[in-house]
């Protein structure tokens, strides 16, 4: 069974169609990169898996999106519970205006967990998972804004991990980071792969090559090509994919 799957998924914003008949299946414990020019629908596609598109007014979604074989858009699905299965990381590091500790604890607190010891332990494991513990262990009570951009982004990943999701969705997670911080996040993605299924939207094709097992190329709301990353970057089957990855687009 696939971890994530979409069958004939269509997304409409009002009258315009953002995604057309996307069929894609992702195995668990893999990293999948979504690439394509701006506005191709890759971010919209990413947000199908935690129903984040639901927040947008006037959106319509048809087809099936499955996590562990369950249609997450079926009637009666508990959306809040569903979202706990997925952690999301954004383009710009966006820690909450809280302390480093409270940022990571946030997901636990809003889900009604009050056991201080439990929260403390979970916060520590999560921060350790993103290899940030040594850098922040002495300033957990300080504002998250005092961290550098790269540290903030890793903190945001820790925040997502704290609720123990099985899927991590990343929307251009390193586009606001310097090369060193980028390398750290990429390394982290490699390590997290053992425990999570990761989907990454990226504009950096070298990054897609470095971190992902499979790559999906989106163009104008359609899935043009989906294959192993090796195949996409050495021998793409579709001319548009080739033009895009070799930089001869448009």
């Amino acid at each position, binding site marked *: 069974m696939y971890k994530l799957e979409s069958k004939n998924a269509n997304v409409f914003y009002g009258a315009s169609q953002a995604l057309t008949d996307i069929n894609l299946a992702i195995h668990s414990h893999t990293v999948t990169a979504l690439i394509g020019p701006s506005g191709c629908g890759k971010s919209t596609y990413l947000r199908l898996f935690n129903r984040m598109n639901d927040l947008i007014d006037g959106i319509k979604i048809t087809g099936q999106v499955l996590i562990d074989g369950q249609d997450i858009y079926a009637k009666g699905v508990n959306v809040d519970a569903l979202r706990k299965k997925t952690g999301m990381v954004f383009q710009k590091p966006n820690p909450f205006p809280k302390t480093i500790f409270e940022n990571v604890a946030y997901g636990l607190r809003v889900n009604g967990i009050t056991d201080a010891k439990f929260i403390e332990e979970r916060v520590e494991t999560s921060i350790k998972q993103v290899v940030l513990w040594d850098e922040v262990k002495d300033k957990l009570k300080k504002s998250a804004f005092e961290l550098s951009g790269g540290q903030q982004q890793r903190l945001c990943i820790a925040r997502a991990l704290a609720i123990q999701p099985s899927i991590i969705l990343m929307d251009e997670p390193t586009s606001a980071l310097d090369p060193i911080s980028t390398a750290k996040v990429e390394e982290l993605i490699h390590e997290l792969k053992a425990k999570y299924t990761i989907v990454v939207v990226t504009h950096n094709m070298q990054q897609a090559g470095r971190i992902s097992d499979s790559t999906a190329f989106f163009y104008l709301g359609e899935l043009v090509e989906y294959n192993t990353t090796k195949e996409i*970057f*050495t021998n*793409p089957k579709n001319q548009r994919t080739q033009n895009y990855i*070799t930089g*001869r687009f448009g």
Partner: protein
Amino acid sequence: MPQIEVELQNLKSEIVLMWKLVSDQMKKSMECLAKMDKDLAEEVLRAEKKVNSAELRIDRDCENIFALFNPVAIDLRLVMALLKINSSLERVGDIAASIAKFVKKSDGFDYLSLITSTHALEMFEEASDLLDDVLHSFESENSQLAEGVFRRDKTLNDLKKDARAVVIAQIKKDPENVEHCLSVLSIIRKLERAGDQSKTIAEEIIFFIDAKVLKHAPKSDEK
């Protein structure tokens, strides 16, 4: 045009120049063998330096493109193919030069009759033609043309087998001149290897265009 495109075009024209240089060497080397012309041999040996420096330049350019432009897909295959074609061409150039060297150092022995009876010049011509054919297929990016080279290489192999038999017969007949006969046999071997290099180049062209790997593919009966 993206900068990588410009760089790849430059690289292509460099390899074509090198190719023509090597092809020229082959033709001149063939002529000097046909006439045992020591002056022409000298010329070929001098030009060998140009081939070597062209090889180094292309190597360096490939390295730069890898490092600076991170080529992928067809671009990646092109640079990889060019890198290998480059070294194949250099080897063919070496073969042309070593035959010229043989002519230059030859003593008074009459090689021509043995060269004629072994059809060595025909082999030479065939090898030189093969090189031109793969150049044509590269320039026109026609992989079918490149495939034609495989058949032609076979004829070259057959010619070599016949030539070997002729040389062995000659040695039996005239054991005095074993050394001279072996020299001719080594030229014939080299020509066969020149043909092999063209075949390798053809394989690289097919890899570049069709992304098909023909190397180490199970072959039909050879040898």
